[in-house]
């Protein structure tokens, strides 16, 4: 029997899957509408939206078409409002049934799809203040991942300065699709701000660029685009490792959200090998990329995108570390991985790390939640 990783289905109990503590490192919070953000928005942009009849950035609908089955599990689609658009829904669907110690709320609202140099930062401020007021302040189990106007590193750094010191903000969400690879030096101000506030950089699915969504052109179908985006995670990881971001900012920690992780071992071997022969171009990379990845990256397990159990076991072994995976439901998105099998193929000592301990340490949750 297959049990789903992301939902507690009718015939499955939480304790059947896991009796220990749970930290869900990826649940989503979607503003129900642009109007819901108006109380947190500078009046000039409230009026600007009304004048123009603008109803919000289109990035999220591009990344997650509202009707696509993967966008939300059926039982997580409420009547008359978007999925994951209220704290009550999150409690009912994830926080209570899973009895989480903590959950990290990601609000990828497609802020990057608004190109306006002043409005995009204002929209990011509104989303972050809404996240704090309507989610973090209302449930002691929640910590937040703030959004930034990722296209504009200076404005992004300014927003991290403004809100990154909030005790319950633990992460900065950046879309995996970007016009520039994140290893590039133009992003140093963002990483400077992230590391000074001891936050995590969270790369999440989606993003709107001037280029094609895949590294080599436009996919014909959503299914194709959905499946190939993993390449972008690989490209961003390679860029950040090779460009020396982790030598420049030794404290920088990155979580790959919704990236899967089955590709990580083989991708790591490949960039190890290229480094051995081509490292003279990038002399700041002074150790094996696999070591850098183990120290600076974590991967959420939703989706897991793994094959049969005997192959899953190999992939877990190939990761070469018990510390790299973080449990997530990726609420409300639909994934169909089998958590019971995934836990079963792991060494016993790895399971509590995946389910809560690694996230607790990575996100400094004791400090963040100690302020509740």
């Amino acid at each position, binding site marked *: 029997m297959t049990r789903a990783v992301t939902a507690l289905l009718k015939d499955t109990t939480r304790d059947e899957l896991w009796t220990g503590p749970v930290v869900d490192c990826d649940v989503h919070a979607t503003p129900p509408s642009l109007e819901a953000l108006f109380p947190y928005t500078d009046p000039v942009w409230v009026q600007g939206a009304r004048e123009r009849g603008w109803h919000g950035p289109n990035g999220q609908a591009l990344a997650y078409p509202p009707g696509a089955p993967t966008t939300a599990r059926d039982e997580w689609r409420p009547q008359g409002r978007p999925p994951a658009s209220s704290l009550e829904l999150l409690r009912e669907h994830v926080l209570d049934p899973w009895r989480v110690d903590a959950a990290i709320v990601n609000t990828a609202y497609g802020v990057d799809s608004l190109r306006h140099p002043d409005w995009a930062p204002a929209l990011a401020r509104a989303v972050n203040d809404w996240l704090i007021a309507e989610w973090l302040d209302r449930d002691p189990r929640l910590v937040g991942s703030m959004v930034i106007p990722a296209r504009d590193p200076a404005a992004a750094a300014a927003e991290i300065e403004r809100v990154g010191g909030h005790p319950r903000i633990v992460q900065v969400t950046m879309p995996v699709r970007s016009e520039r690879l994140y290893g590039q030096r133009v992003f140093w101000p963002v990483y400077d701000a992230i590391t000074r506030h001891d936050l995590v950089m969270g790369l999440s699915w989606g993003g709107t660029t001037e280029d094609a969504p895949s590294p080599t052109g436009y996919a014909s179908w959503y299914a194709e685009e959905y499946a190939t985006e993993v390449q972008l995670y690989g490209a961003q990881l390679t860029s950040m490792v090779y460009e*020396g*971001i982790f030598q*420049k900012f030794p404290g920088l920690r990155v979580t790959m959200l919704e990236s899967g992780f089955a590709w990580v071992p083989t991708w790591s071997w490949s960039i190890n090998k290229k*480094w*051995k*022969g081509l*490292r*003279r171009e990038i*002399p*700041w990379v002074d150790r094996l990329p696999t070591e850098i990845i183990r120290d600076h990256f974590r991967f959420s397990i939703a989706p897991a995108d793994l094959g049969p159990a005997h192959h899953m076991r190999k992939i877990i072994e190939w990761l070469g570390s018990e510390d790299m995976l973080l449990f997530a439901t990726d609420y409300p998105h639909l994934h169909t991985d089998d958590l019971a099998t995934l836990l079963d193929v792991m060494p016993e000592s790895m399971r509590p790390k995946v389910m809560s301990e690694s996230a607790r340490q990575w996100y400094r949750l004791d400090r963040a939640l100690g302020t509740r």
Partner: protein
Amino acid sequence: MTAAKTRSQRFVVARVDEIPPGERRIVEAGGREIGVYNVGGRFYAMLNRCPHLAGPLCAGQVVNAVESSGPGDVRLEESRTYVTCPWHNWEFDIETGQSYWNPKLRARPLPVGVEDGAEIEAALARGDLARLPGPYRAEMVPVSVESDYVVLSLRPTRGGQS
């Protein structure tokens, strides 16, 4: 192995001016291929066998170290020279043979030096120096007292590694 071969671990490789600075010559001595390098007037020798997958190490480029303290800082360190294998471009320190990325992996450097013609003639007479054997006998190095010669030793500078 003849007694003479086992005794003669040193070979005259070339007249000094035949391997000018920046040049390299691959020779065969004692049944092995050896690259002899002139780097800025100093001679180095390295077994022509990469310790990774046995590639022809000495056919690769000779480069200096590139130093960096972090992204944006790139400096050529001319005091350190690497031989790079043409198969995978791994770098091996020309003096120690050590691989850049895997210090446990070593190519095999060999001692090489410069001796004047008189010393060479005396050593040849004593039989503790050999001319290059092998298929290039016709090109065997003629020795004259007026010149200096590059002399290669097959006794490894470091023990136990082949």
